[in-house]
């Protein structure tokens, strides 16, 4: 009797393990294993041909070389700004989709946000380059309209990088926002209005607190995507982009300095983790709650 019960429990666990196996295998072999390898790489130094010793030299280089520092900080600040701008732009769109548009108009708006993702990021960004370069369509148009005397180079500017980043991230902000705004009961807004609140005060005291988990989730996703983006900043910003992922790429591919690249990778991971934690702390959210509610 007892044996049978134990047997059954064991069967249950076995089934669970079997179901989780693909996910665990994926997590283990493609995420944890390479990272463990990278971690080992980042903590060693080449002392001679095929001779390595454990050291903190890679991290030390980062802190002593102002260029790396500068790029690192710049990437962080630009990513925070891009995330914030995406939020500002996505919020009204999400509001329209969730609250104002009825039926077909709502899905149409959603599709408009989705369309950019039908084209690959590379093709899309190259398209932008055609549009924005000095001999491109937009500068020519500006001259024609009399806004500028000579065609101006619109590429390789921070603002252009920013626009590209926001554009690529928009959908990832709109989706969690729509789902959290849709769950906001309209009668709460009406009740606040009835009790004397104006638009801004309703936004501050009712809408934002309700949508906070969605806002946080969207911001985390967009921030991580932006921080780790390589293509958009490099193509639109060229040499001026100074994006940290580009530094990592250079270390691995151009300089063949895997140890340095691995250390940079971990610094980026640390940066995104730290900033996400700060964001959560500032907004009073808990990571588990945020992920559960969206």
């Amino acid at each position, binding site marked *: 009797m007892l044996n049978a019960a134990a047997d059954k429990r064991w069967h249950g666990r076995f089934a669970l393990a079997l179901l989780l196996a693909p996910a665990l295998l994926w997590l283990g072999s493609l995420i944890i294993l390479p990272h463990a390898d990278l971690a080992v790489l980042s903590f060693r130094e080449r002392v001679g041909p095929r001779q390595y010793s454990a050291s903190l030299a890679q991290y030390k280089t980062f802190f002593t070389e102002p260029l790396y520092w500068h790029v690192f900080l710049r990437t962080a600040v630009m990513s925070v700004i891009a995330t914030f701008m995406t939020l500002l732009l996505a919020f009204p769109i999400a509001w329209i989709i969730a609250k104002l548009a009825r039926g077909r108009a709502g899905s149409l708006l959603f599709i408009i946000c989705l369309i950019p993702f039908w084209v690959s990021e590379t093709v899309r960004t190259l398209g932008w380059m055609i549009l924005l370069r000095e001999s491109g369509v937009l500068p020519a148009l500006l001259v024609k309209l009399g806004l500028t005397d000579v065609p101006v180079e619109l590429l390789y500017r921070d603002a252009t990088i920013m626009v590209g980043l926001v554009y690529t991230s928009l959908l990832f902000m709109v989706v969690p926002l729509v789902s959290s705004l849709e769950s906001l*009961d309209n*009668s*709460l807004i*009406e*009740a*606040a*209005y*009835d*009790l*004397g*609140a*104006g638009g801004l*005060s309703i936004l501050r*005291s*009712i809408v934002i*607190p*309700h949508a906070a988990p969605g806002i946080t989730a969207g911001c985390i996703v967009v921030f991580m995507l932006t921080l780790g983006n390589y293509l958009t900043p490099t193509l639109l910003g060229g040499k001026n982009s100074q994006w940290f992922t580009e530094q990592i790429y250079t270390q691995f591919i151009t300089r063949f300095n895997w140890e340095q690249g691995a250390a940079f990778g971990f610094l980026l991971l640390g940066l995104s983790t730290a900033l996400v934690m700060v964001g959560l702390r500032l907004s009073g959210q808990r990571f588990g709650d945020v992920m559960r509610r969206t």
Partner: protein
Amino acid sequence: MSTPDLVADSVVKRFADHVAVDSLSFSVKRGSFFSILGPSGCGKTTLLRMIAGFIAPDSGDIAIGGKSMRDVAPNRRPVNMVFQQLALFPMMSVGENVAFGLARRGMPKAERLKRSNAMLERVSLGGAADKRVDELSGGQRQRVAIARSLVLEPTLLLLDEPLGALDLKLREHMKIELKQLQAAFGTTFVYITHDQSEALVLSDHVGVMSHGRFEQLGTPQDLYYRPQTPFVAGFVGANNRIVGRATGTDGAILEVTTADGWVVRALKSGSIAAGDAVEVFVRPEVAILARNAATLPPDQPHHSGQVQSVLFDGANSAVLLQEERTRREFRIALPQTGQFSDLKPQEKVAFSFDPARAVCFAARAGAAGTDA
């Protein structure tokens, strides 16, 4: 005579080609409890939302406290609303909910706290200020919703079926509590409901609404004892409805014969000519039941029937009869004396009712021939 707190003047609201509120005019006296009673879909919520300012009337005017409310936004009107689903703010504590309106008026925090606590005290929720909304029971939430509005001292408090979501027992309890709250605060209440018992118990005046219009406006007693339309007679309180044709008159009393030949008498309401299709309404408590026809009042027409079922419900017990010849259903309230407590189905009984206490209307278009 002070000005009425609410005056509606020929208010109309259309949705596409459907008229939700059809040229309504009425006024509500200061400090009174006014109910709008009607079946669901008759336009009650639409009317209330126009008073609150969420939707604008297509034509007509609404004045609150003597001032026209045209182009006045909801947050600037001296009215507050208790929503059907209460709409308490889940992101705030009970105290913050109650203080919300005060904060929007820019009242300093200390004063806000004092007032909201005093208000919670008055609705017997003292000490609940720091609780979360979802920690409260249904009845307590109800009181928070009312307190949140009353703390702003509105001219008018609007309530949209606030008891609809509560279970029966709590509803009965909250009914009494609402009435006491209104008396204690003296605020004018405009209450909408589809439950006639709520309207009768709570109100000073009731407007019975159907298809966007008021069928009758009066005190609960008026509606119950002197219904002016067949709709009111059928909707307010229980009633036996008998459809037939006018076959004779005796002063104000009309003789009515049903299609299958049952003859009853009732008081005529409005002008009815011989041969017109009519509807007769007889309240269950107006009819008198007897085992022996000889004990019935001799001046009333006697009828006989067979017991179909006994509906025991304590003080509201009734018996469902079938009229002897036509097998039409007829409901009679059982007296409290217990004299019919041994009544059995299939038993033959006699009954009568005072024709002056039964009422007869010209039949509504499309209503003839069906029994309710």
